[in-house]
């Protein structure tokens, strides 16, 4: 398997970033009239199923399919390197704060050193958008980031910001390094950040401003101002203010820029029992509906389940309702690191954030702080990205392509999913985030290969994967109601008992002969805390349980989640 082994940070990254061309059928920049009749017919099929222009053709998805098909040969399956398309799985975190956040404390190098030590290959610095940050911090943080890139070459350090999405929650916005990274972020923040700009123009105007911000990022890439840009929604269900139609609106405005959301929020230590914890909620998800929240969301949506956001943890819920549209929307898991539990550093004395755009460097405070709820980047939450090389652009391409799986507490070390035709002589295959194109009636199977934990995690114990669940749903096309947040046809279709901590395990789930588009995704658990899913035991007999406020030990409730793979029979 091509996954990345942690502990080995001496990467040999010699891949150049290759621009992956979309086939003309999937490239919406190519007009219908420019296509051959055969291409046009194929595009019509994509359009009918909602898969056109959705970014599914991006990066390695189609090239991976082509590679596997070309090397299928007489062995009946391609060699391991080609099954994963020679991907390196790079662990990272796109949600990290520093002393340039109005609620932050650490230096950039503090975060980068810990991220590197805990095994992260990439990280994004996302200080809060504020008037002060837009004016001072967004520029002043850049030399610190540039220095961290130099000092810690084996962890890629992106500059981004945590956008206060007008009328909604926060989101990570980040760009590829380059001469205009700062000016682009600064211009974005001044024009589109709710706190930086404080628009207060009412709901429709705010929602339009959010879309305009995403369009601005796409335009900056189109004009080569920055090489790439991405936006992901953070802690989306925390306060009920990311409505389903807003999420669909972001995704549909720029599917290559607005690509996903946190499946699991940060602040995972927030539920540890007092006095050696905050005694609050995992993710600090302890809010309730407000006038600004989406009225359709149930109270359950304001809490976490096995540490994951309700949108993701509910089988058949909001995330699945997006995937059932046949459009990509990927999940990640991050630290949201501001203040590390048990750390004795305190914010620098005599700070003047307003004047300096940052707090002074932290100092030793003399006693560990258990009244905070975060872990260092890489310590508990990881977002694993299948990248074609160790490069900024490869990480961004991998995220955009949905070659992403996430885990908590080092539950597993490597995950390879291959959705493939079960017909030996016409075998094609694709991995996480991809689309398997098959002929109608061809049997399809999902092959799940997992490198178990094999090593202790950062709480110094060896996690055990107890069980895997495969969820499957039908692709039913664009939702008629943009505020839809359930889909009736997605459910857990197969579970595998594992009960091991070391070695590699492999399972195959047969989807049978397909006559309509479907998707599958996989999750796994240590089995410590489970409950019937919120949409019923028939949908999810043994899903993540509601986290208890005041007593939620994140190390005793570990899950991993993959992103989906689609199968598209024609």
């Amino acid at each position, binding site marked *: 398997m091509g996954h990345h082994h942690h502990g080995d940070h001496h990467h040999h990254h010699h891949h150049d970033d290759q621009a992956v061309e979309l086939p003309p059928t999937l490239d919406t920049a190519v007009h219908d009239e420019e296509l051959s009749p055969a291409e046009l017919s194929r595009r019509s099929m994509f359009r009918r199923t909602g898969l056109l222009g959705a970014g599914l053709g991006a990066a390695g998805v189609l090239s991976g399919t082509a590679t596997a098909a070309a090397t299928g040969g007489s062995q009946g399956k391609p060699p391991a390197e080609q099954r994963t398309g020679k991907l390196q799985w790079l662990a990272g975190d796109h949600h990290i704060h520093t002393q340039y956040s*109005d609620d932050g404390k650490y230096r950039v190098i503090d975060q980068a050193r810990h991220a590197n030590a805990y095994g992260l290959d990439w990280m994004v610095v996302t200080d809060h958008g504020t008037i002060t940050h837009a004016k001072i911090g967004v520029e002043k943080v850049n030399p610190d980031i540039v220095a961290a890139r130099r000092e810690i070459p084996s962890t890629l350090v992106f500059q981004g910001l945590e956008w206060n999405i007008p009328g909604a929650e926060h989101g990570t916005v980040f760009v590829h390094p380059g001469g205009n990274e700062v000016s682009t972020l600064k211009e974005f923040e001044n024009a589109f950040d709710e706190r930086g700009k404080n628009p207060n123009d009412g*709901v429709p105007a705010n929602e339009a401003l959010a879309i305009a911000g995403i369009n601005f990022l796409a335009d900056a890439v189109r004009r080569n101002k920055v090489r790439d840009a991405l936006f992901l929604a953070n802690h989306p269900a925390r*306060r009920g203010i990311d409505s389903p139609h807003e999420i669909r609106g972001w995704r549909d405005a720029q599917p290559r820029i607005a690509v996903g959301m946190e499946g699991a929020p940060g602040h995972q230590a*927030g539920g540890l029992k007092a006095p050696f914890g905050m005694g609050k909620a995992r993710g600090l998800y302890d*809010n*309730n509906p407000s*006038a600004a929240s989406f009225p359709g969301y149930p109270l359950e949506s304001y809490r976490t389940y096995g540490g994951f956001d309700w949108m993701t943890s509910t089988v058949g819920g909001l995330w699945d309702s997006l995937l059932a549209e046949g459009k990509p929307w990927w999940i990640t898991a991050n630290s949201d690191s501001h*203040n590390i539990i048990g750390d004795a550093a305190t914010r620098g004395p005599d700070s003047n954030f307003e004047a300096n755009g940052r707090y002074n460097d932290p100092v030793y405070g003399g006693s560990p702080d258990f009244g905070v709820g975060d872990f260092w980047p890489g310590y508990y939450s990881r977002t694993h990205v299948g990248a074609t090389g160790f490069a900024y652009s490869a990480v961004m391409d991998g995220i955009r392509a949905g070659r992403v799986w996430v885990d908590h507490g080092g539950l597993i070390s490597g995950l390879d999913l291959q959705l493939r035709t079960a017909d030996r002589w016409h075998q094609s295959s694709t991995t996480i985030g991809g689309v398997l194109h098959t002929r109608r009636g061809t049997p399809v199977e999902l092959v799940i290969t997992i490198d178990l934990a094999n090593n202790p995690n950062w709480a110094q114990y060896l996690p055990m994967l107890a069980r895997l669940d495969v969820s499957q749903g039908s692709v039913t096309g664009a939702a008629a109601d943009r505020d839809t947040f359930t889909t009736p046809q997605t459910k857990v279709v197969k579970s595998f008992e594992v009960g091991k901590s070391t070695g590699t395990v492999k399972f195959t789930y047969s989807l049978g002969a397909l006559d309509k588009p479907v998707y599958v995704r996989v999750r796994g658990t240590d089995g410590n805390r489970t409950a019937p899913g919120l949409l019923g035991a028939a949908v999810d007999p043994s899903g993540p349980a*509601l986290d208890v*406020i005041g007593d939620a030990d994140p190390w005793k409730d570990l899950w991993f989640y993959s992103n989906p793979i689609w199968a598209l029979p024609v």
Partner: protein
Amino acid sequence: MTTVFGLDAGSGSLRDADHLIQEQRDRLGLPPETIACTHFVRADRPHVAVSFQLPHGSSPDAWWEPLSALGIGVSWEGRRIGPVELSTGAADAADELASKQGGRAVVYPGVDRLVGEVTVGQLLDESAIDRVVVLAGQGEPAPEAVVHTRDHVRPEWRDGQLTLMTAPAPNGAFVPFEVPDPTPCCADHA
């Protein structure tokens, strides 16, 4: 026939609306049987309105003048005063309480006794709350189960019943769903 009226001061948060309720209850000297609720107004500028239900035989006349003097939206049995945006919010709030289909109760009979720890049975017997339900499809807790009230119990009208949503707490106890001091969106934790 009870008497229901609505007020809308454009409150930006539940906390502000709770304060408006308590302030007006005290100022107007409303009877102890009064029920007062908050209601979301999901207009272009989302905010919170409030409603009051007075016991049988209460006449609006005694309170009309002090309410008119507030300069906020007021709606009482078809009579409205204040800016139209606010008087509409007040009317909607009053309608919601009258139909018992919505509204989060801040003031209700027995609320003063729901402090510290109480059992589910006590909570049902000693207050106007009709029903206790556990979040995430976990049914109704046993009468002897303990509820840590945190001195903040805000039941909601659901299908005509004043319903308290609760969540599991450590050691088999329960807590009301609504946390008294939820983590603000950009907490300055340090």
